[in-house]
């Protein structure tokens, strides 16, 4: 197993926005971390990348086993051997991820030189090859360009190139297409899917869009208010969502032939981490709530049909 997260809890002072997360990711696989804003997806990604201290958080409990090493126990100096080198990160907004005053080529090359010890010449060659592999036309000319000269989709490809320049085993992409046009979003999602298959990377894809999850993910972890609601292989999850939250998220995407008025959304909003409710955190928005959901936290249990589920009143097969 490339990545194995076990009982991960994240704390910010007295507040615990993420509790008891466990999931696995193999090479050549894509896991989708899905949930609404405030569900803890991005914090989980930052924890795996060792970036939590940047935002003032820390790993309170649990293990992040990456290729056998527990990253949660590693000091900052030790993390540097992983971050950028073996774990690449693609952020949401390519407009802010690039330095506007530096040429594209230099920004990608510096990663290859820093993490792979390549010379300037070698790094330049590697960058051209990488950009070409990412289907960027005229890679040589692009290397001499500044970010403002490129389109949004091209900038996001450059950010992906920077994440790949250290030749990582794990790629973390946090809403990599949210800021892009729809036709370009489709191109980038396909590109990420191809990279995973061709290079045998593991990809942790963070999104709130069940459409994107259905399109490329092999495994899915559904998060709600910092806890796992359900994990499963993507075909099983979409065919038979067991957690009412999973079903509600899927129903938020308009589909061909959907009856007018059937798109209703999920009432209410995700609570903030400082005011998580007792029992199941989804209970006050859940159409299948039982009395015990208010008081008893549903444990995450492995299921015979695959994956795991945390719900007192799951949906049956339909």
């Amino acid at each position, binding site marked *: 197993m490339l990545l194995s997260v076990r009982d991960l809890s994240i704390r910010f002072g007295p507040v615990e926005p993420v509790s008891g997360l466990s999931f696995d990711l193999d090479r050549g696989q894509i896991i989708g971390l899905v949930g609404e804003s405030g569900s803890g997806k991005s914090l989980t990604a930052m924890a795996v990348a060792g970036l939590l201290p940047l935002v003032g958080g820390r790993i309170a409990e649990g293990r992040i086993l990456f290729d056998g090493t527990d990253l949660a126990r590693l000091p900052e100096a030790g993390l540097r051997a992983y971050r950028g080198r073996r774990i690449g990160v693609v952020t949401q907004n390519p407009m802010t991820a690039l330095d506007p005053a530096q040429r594209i080529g230099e920004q990608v090359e510096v990663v290859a030189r820093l993490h792979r010890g390549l010379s300037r010449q070698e790094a330049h060659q590697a960058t051209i090859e990488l950009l070409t592999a990412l289907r960027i036309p005229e890679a040589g000319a692009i290397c001499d360009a500044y970010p403002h000269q490129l389109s949004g989709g*091209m900038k996001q490809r450059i950010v992906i190139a920077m994440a790949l320049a250290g030749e990582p085993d794990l790629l973390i992409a946090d809403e990599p297409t949210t800021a892009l046009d729809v036709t370009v979003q489709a191109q980038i999602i396909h590109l990420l899917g191809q990279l995973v298959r061709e290079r045998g990377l593991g990809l942790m894809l963070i999104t709130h869009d069940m459409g994107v999850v259905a*399109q*490329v993910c092999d495994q899915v972890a559904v998060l709600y208010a910092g806890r796992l609601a359900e994990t499963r292989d993507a075909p099983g999850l979409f065919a038979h969502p067991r957690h009412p939250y999973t079903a509600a998220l899927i129903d*938020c995407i308009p*589909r061909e032939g959907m009856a007018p008025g059937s798109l209703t959304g999920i*009432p209410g909003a995700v609570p903030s981490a400082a005011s998580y409710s007792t029992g199941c955190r989804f209970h006050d928005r859940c159409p299948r709530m039982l009395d015990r959901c208010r008081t008893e936290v549903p444990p995450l249990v492995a299921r015979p049909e695959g994956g795991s589920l945390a719900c007192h009143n799951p949906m049956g097969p339909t």
Partner: protein
Amino acid sequence: MTRPLLRAEGLSRRFSTGGGWFSPARSMLAVRGVSFDQARGEVLGVVGESGCGKSTLARLVLRLIEPTEGAVTFDGQDVTALGKGDLRRLRRRMAMVFQDPYSSLDPRFTVEDALSEPFAVQHERPPGGRIATLLDQVGLSRAMGRSYPHQLSGGQRQRVGIARALAQAPDFIVLDEPTASLDVSIQAQIIGLLADLKRDHGLTYLFISHDLGLVRYFCDRVLVMYLGAVVEVLPTADAAPRHPYTRALMDSNFVPDPAHRRTLQAIKGEIPSAFNLPKGCAFAARCPRATDLCRAVDPPLSELSPGHPVACHHPL
């Protein structure tokens, strides 16, 4: 067809930049000759990617910006010819909901202040109980009237934006990407709310969006725009697309069903700059069906079947 509520005729808008010491003046047509009729009670969708001119079109319709050419008629009145006072009075009947509820609300105004502003513009005070009614209509608690925008979630702010549009009981509302900055769960809530309001108040919507899936769910008829011009009008929400660009937009829309994964790359490349439009069809460079004819002659909109105009030399 009875008289349309809204009619746009040959709307165009040119923007110019530069002309300083270092850069030569350049101009581009953000909207190129757009015409359409909208019936009372109809939800008309306008869909396209960034730079297609859909937001400029929305502003032209409300005359928030002046057209370079063309005219807008609202309920028989020529909006483009109205004087300042008449235009202000007409604005009671035409409202707008903006994309970003974070920047369209003044952080120093409470929700009540924000909802009173449309009345202040008309030199009026909100009638007693009107603010409370508006909050009820958009599903916000009355206590929220004393909140400031920073105390609200994104979905709540957009509800305030909708309540503000409803303040003067308009019959026509332009919705400019009202859900683009929201989570999908909240997006669905807001769409549900808009559908309820339309039913209860007999509203007419011009719904601007980049999301063809959402537009096809919510709208009766759809204008598809590319680089400032309408390339196709879908006569019904479930009509099969005839323009390759509309097809590409549909193929880029991911269905939440892993059994229907798209394996084909829909279209290559990105939207070119509107500053140097190609000579023929603006979509030719990205189009899988393009021929020499497409690169030489811009295809006009023509009806392939009744009510279904398409601007393409080689329609699907």
